[in-house]
């Protein structure tokens, strides 16, 4: 069949283009982060010394940290190393960046993954329910609550939760005491409040998007047709409406997931949680370039991967995309392609 010849280019070209863009994005992100750090006032030595940054002291510390080298040269060296998987050593602690970053990333995943799983499932379900029962009491409650949660910044939610469940009712610890030394076992009792905060912060957006796209889909012709065909409401909703309704929600989900995996600065800070967000804040404060660059690289990667995943899932979910391909194939057989070539 002719499909075998047209298929690879149909799928491979866009995927390869996406991958190329992804690599470019990551490299550009690292360059912009480098430039941004250069634009910040002060260097590692000055930031570490603060009020003690007398000219002599700064000179002495710069020498001992190896900062007397040209910054561009150091950046290029770092980049060359990073390509080979070597993220360099932290200018502040003198420790290799990779293990530190790995621990922080693992810790962030420990709160991000549960928040993601619970948050996405729960909020999609709630969004669809609200959309299907538009205007009813359940919709009003869901909409209003999600609007309220969306309007309250997450550090506020975090603080209120600490107040209620760590100070008022001492069920959970308020902060992580042991910092980056904490093992997974030690972190377990402390992850619950951050997970709740992240779930709430993320859920509200997804609920609202899912609700509005469900409403759109429910009003569309094919749903009406399905209803007129005599299908049960349950079947109409789950079989026909939901997959289409999820499509516009996907990008919101992807962005939220990336936001979660990239480490959530404010939430981690309130709980003194030793994740990526906290590591990022500290390294930016100290102008610790290798660490900042490694974090930027990892975050950019996570964003790219999440968006790529969203696109692929969209491909699977979208009936139009699938049918369009089939239609294109049929058309090519009936001679549409030559016309397109001529136009080009």
């Amino acid at each position, binding site marked *: 069949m002719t499909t075998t010849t047209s298929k690879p280019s149909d799928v491979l070209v866009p995927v390869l283009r996406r991958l190329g863009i992804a690599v470019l994005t990551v490299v550009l992100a690292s360059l912009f982060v480098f430039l941004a750090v250069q634009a910040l006032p002060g260097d590692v030595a000055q930031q*570490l010394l603060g009020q003690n940054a007398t000219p002599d002291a700064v000179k002495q510390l710069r020498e*001992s940290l190896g900062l007397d080298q040209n910054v561009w040269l150091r950046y290029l060296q770092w980049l060359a190393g990073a390509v080979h998987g070597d993220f360099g050593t932290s200018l502040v602690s003198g420790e290799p960046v990779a293990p530190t970053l790995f621990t922080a990333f693992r810790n962030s995943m420990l709160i991000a993954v549960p928040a993601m799983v619970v948050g996405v499932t729960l909020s999609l379900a709630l969004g669809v329910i609200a959309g299907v029962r538009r205007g009813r009491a359940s919709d009003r409650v869901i909409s209003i609550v999600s609007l309220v949660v969306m309007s309250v910044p997450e550090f506020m939610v975090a603080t209120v939760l600490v107040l209620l469940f760590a100070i008022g009712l001492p069920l959970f610890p308020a*902060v992580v*005491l*042991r910092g980056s030394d904490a093992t997974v076992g030690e972190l377990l009792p402390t992850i619950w409040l951050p997970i709740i905060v992240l779930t709430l912060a993320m859920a509200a957006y997804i609920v609202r998007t899912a609700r509005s796209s469900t409403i759109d889909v429910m009003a569309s012709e094919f749903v009406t047709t399905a209803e007129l065909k005599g299908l049960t409401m349950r079947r109409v909703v789950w079989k026909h409406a939901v997959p289409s309704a999820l499509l516009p929600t996907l990008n919101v989900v992807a962005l939220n997931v990336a936001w979660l995996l990239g480490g959530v600065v404010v939430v981690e800070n309130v709980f003194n949680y030793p994740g990526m967000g906290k590591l990022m*804040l500290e390294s930016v404060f100290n102008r610790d370039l290798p660490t900042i660059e490694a974090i930027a690289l990892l975050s950019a990667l996570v964003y790219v991967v999440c968006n790529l995943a969203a696109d692929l899932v969209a491909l699977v979910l979208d009936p139009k995309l699938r049918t369009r391909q089939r239609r294109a194939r049929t058309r090519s057989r009936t001679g549409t392609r030559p016309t397109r070539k001529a136009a080009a």
Partner: protein
Amino acid sequence: MQPIVPEPRNARGPSRRALLTGAAGLAGLGLLTLTGCSSGASAGTTDLPEAAATGTARSGGRLRIARPAASAAETLDSASSLSAYEYLGALYNRLVKLDQQGRTVPDLAEEWSANQDGTEWTFRLRRGVRFHDGSRFSADDAIASIRHILDEKTGSPQAGVLGEVMDARSMTAVDTYTLRFALTKPNAEFPSLLTAYQCYIVPAGAIADIGRTGIGTGPFRLSSFTPAGAGSVEAFDDHFAGRPALDGIDFYSIQDTTARVNALLAGQIDLISQTNLDFATARVVAASDRATIARSKNAQWYTIPMLATSEEFRDPRVRQAMKLAYDPRTIVDTALQGTGSPGWDNPVPPQLAAFVDDHREYDPDKAKALLRAAGRSDLRASIYTSSYESVFTPMAVAYRDAVADAGIRLTVKNASSDSYYTQIWMQKPLMVSYWFTGRPIDQLLNQIFRSGSSYNESAWSNERFDGLLDDARAEMDDAKRLTLYQDAQRLVVEDGADMTPMFGDRLVGLSRDVVNYSEYGFEFDYLRIGLRR
């Protein structure tokens, strides 16, 4: 890296504090209602306690301290500018330390004396003192420790202060327990220079890796330490002044101020170190059932440096007018809500023995006249502040309002806290700043006010003042030397460019279980602090 200046680690709190100001405020409101309900008292009117609880501590127990760690570069080497400040007093001793009045008193040295002109100092050292590793303390350890401070490679902030009167060859061990300093210049206040928190004594053989091992003679020995992480110290049974009340101390590093307070309120920690709580938070803590507030009196020395090299403040008459135009008592009332003492532009804290107690007048009319004479009746300037410290902005605003009567129009400008000390300090003509009190008089005046000193934040230069300090150093008669220091203070008040509106009490959050907390200057009583029976 601490307190010769309150520093970056403090800066990081606030940089987040800026981020979370709202959170603290809102949390404050929430807590107020919560605790208000539970205790039946109106938390809003809670007065902040004056003194820490005293009493008999139960024997044993572990104290949990939350500290704002400097950075992952921190070290236990006290000589370094990146030292983990809270550990130092627990692990080490100096030759001499300061009492509350700023007088030099014995620590590892029992007594000391000088020759006629103050160029040769002999210290008799305590006998039978053991380091945590079992070795005996002797004069050689003291020599090695001080050489380590003077060593350029250490980059110690105290190197400049000591280097002015001595070098590595100035010290000799007369015998095991007698140490002699042959100074390059006379200095009648020399022993006080050894009270700095960089001058802790460590074993001569352990200096190379002291940053990790923390071996000293102090009341606690190190059991674990992670830079910018957690660490522990255990009671040292062979400490020369007896065993401490506690069995051990666990140090945790928590960068965010709100998080430190939450940990205290949730009972996860017992004391927040090196943190001056803002008033809203302090009231919440004081009203809670679990925690309370103790004050470290006049621990924060607030300043408003006018850059003496700037076009605006080059004229001494303008500087004089900037002082006469405000009443520091109103600044204490508004910016500190009464928790401190007016400074009247004298940088010497009132508790110090050398303090001269005749303050300047408050006279806005005279200020106006001076400005007219200087041709600056329309003085307009920007005063820089940041969220680096909780009192900065209230102080800048209170000062601006106070000088308005004299026709001085100031605009308050808020700068980023994370680069405040690299971009604004010593660069803008007018800004607010602070130091921790705790310097002995000689170091205070020489380090912050002498011409050309790298910590001279107003770039003020006055030959007569420098001369007074030199005379004082050469004056071996205590009474005469005191007069010279007092003249120097008067000169700072009259002509100086660094205003001192006030000294603030540090509002320290601690558990209601903690007894015998005592801290002044850079002295923390690790020996007596304990937990309630």
